[in-house]
């Protein structure tokens, strides 16, 4: 594989993460626990879709097969998606959504910080714009982790349970595979091994303030990055891709 093709494949990981998480968050629109939070979740979703568009457009260019952002989003099947398992997990209740967001944002922030200095200039410029947005996302999700953790007994219990459910999916974020390592070697992306510790530190600091326990998990789930997903992703795609699949080749 040529370097540009590999970079294209790497960009799909980034773009699929933001696409799938954006799609999940958009499910809240109109159903949030209070109007202000409905708006806030939608804001994050909108930011993530904006990032998705930049990333998938660039991935399509590098691929050189003339695929547009929409071809990539709407015409690939589950096995071709490269997002991590964490972001495809269902919303659950508000605690589930916040825990998932926090666990992802903490990683996303560190990743983008590095990508701002990527040797790939185009990716660096996308990362710079995204980092501003994700700084806000992380603040939002961290504040809610603390509010729910240190709020009432009920909220504490719910957010702790959500953490337990999702913790297994965090390992994949900072565990490199061959493609990650190659991108790190080229200076395109960070060495994920080196993100592990800052990630855990960042997460643990907030959990501590939130009076929450870090789950003790013996096993971490992997596979999203190489297309081995949970059962949830297929349903998300079936819904998202419905029109493009039912009426192929049209302009909307």
């Amino acid at each position: 594989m040529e370097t540009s093709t590999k970079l294209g494949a790497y960009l799909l990981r980034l773009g699929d993460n933001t696409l799938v998480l954006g799609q999940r968050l958009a499910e809240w629109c109109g159903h949030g626990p209070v109007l202000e939070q409905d708006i806030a979740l939608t804001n994050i979703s909108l930011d993530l879709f904006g990032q998705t568009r930049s990333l998938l457009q660039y991935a399509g260019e590098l691929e050189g097969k003339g695929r547009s952002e929409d071809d990539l989003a709407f015409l690939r099947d589950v096995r071709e998606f490269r997002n991590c398992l964490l972001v495809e997990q269902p919303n659950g209740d508000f605690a589930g959504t916040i825990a998932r967001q926090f666990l992802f944002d903490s990683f996303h922030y560190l990743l983008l910080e590095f990508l701002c200095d990527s040797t790939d200039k185009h990716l660096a410029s996308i990362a710079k714009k995204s980092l501003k947005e994700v700084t806000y996302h992380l603040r939002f999700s961290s504040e809610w982790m603390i509010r729910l953790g240190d709020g009432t007994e009920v909220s504490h219990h719910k957010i702790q349970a959500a953490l337990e459910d999702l913790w297994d999916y965090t390992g994949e974020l900072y565990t490199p595979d061959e493609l990650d390592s190659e991108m790190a070697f080229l200076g395109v992306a960070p060495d994920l091994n080196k993100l592990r510790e800052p990630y855990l530190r960042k997460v643990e600091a907030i959990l501590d303030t939130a009076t929450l326990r870090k789950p003790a998990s013996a096993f971490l789930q992997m596979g999203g990055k190489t297309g081995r997903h949970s059962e949830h992703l297929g349903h998300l795609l079936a819904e998202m891709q419905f029109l493009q699949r039912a009426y192929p080749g049209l302009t909307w």
Partner: protein
Amino acid sequence: MEKLHDLQQAFQAKIDADEKIEPKDWMPDAYRKTLIRQISQHAHSEIVGMLPEGNWISRAPSLRRKVALLAKVQDEAGHGLYLYSAAETLGIDRETLIDDLHTGKAKYSSIFNYPTLSWADIGAIGWLVDGAAIMNQVMLTRTSYGPYARAMVRICKEESFHQRQGYEILLTLCRGSEAQKEMAQDALNRWWWPSLMMFGPSDKESQHTEQSMLWKIKRKTNDELRQQFVDATVPQAEFLGLSIPDPDLKWNEETGHYEFGEINWDEFWQVVKGNGPCNRERIKARIKAHEEGAWVREAAMAYAKKRKERATAAQKVA
């Protein structure tokens, strides 16, 4: 008694002089009540209106359309927020208003009790429903109550953007495949009459119009606004190449207006009474969001309280 009479006269004189009434000004109880009813109804319409359009966010056909629709529905949440705030200036709180929506005491625009069945419905809602809303809202930018008028100025700007966006969705469909054109025509067929109903009962049936006109809360009657909407919309449908589902629709050279067929008022009242295709679902969805959010709101309050207590304790120590 004398004093009340003076106050009432001064109030009406202010309105007659086209001055705005502000929250701290004296106002008749009935004026206050009418405004609370109308503004909250408007706020609820924005919030319930998020549901039929929200139904297509997950299935929008391109990323560009998805972002536009999501942003539009979010704008509606924002409109709901400023309208609730405008209502709060009249001395009622958001929680009470929301309760009134959930118990059915307060109404919202009946149009949102119709289902969105295809992507073209998203275009039709933008074009027709936002189009009809704009007719009403442009008038309301000149309404006599200051906070309401000011909220409307901001809302109108966003609504006209939404309307263009909706029209553009339909234009794209109408220039597309046969199936897409059919989708667009079918959407117009289903949304046309409910859109005309959005202006409310005819002037002879409307119980609030006369007093509201006197108070300059409303500045045009339901029938005037409806006519204005039909006149503006028919040429737009022609441009799309779609036909309006009304065999009686015709241009009247003399009056310079379109004549149109009789609205099915039975259907109108049925939907108002709660028997539209989605009334039950819409309210259930709102109640569900509110109830399932209760623990979140409680947690936020409990945490804020703890923080305050800790800050006070820390101050004492210092």
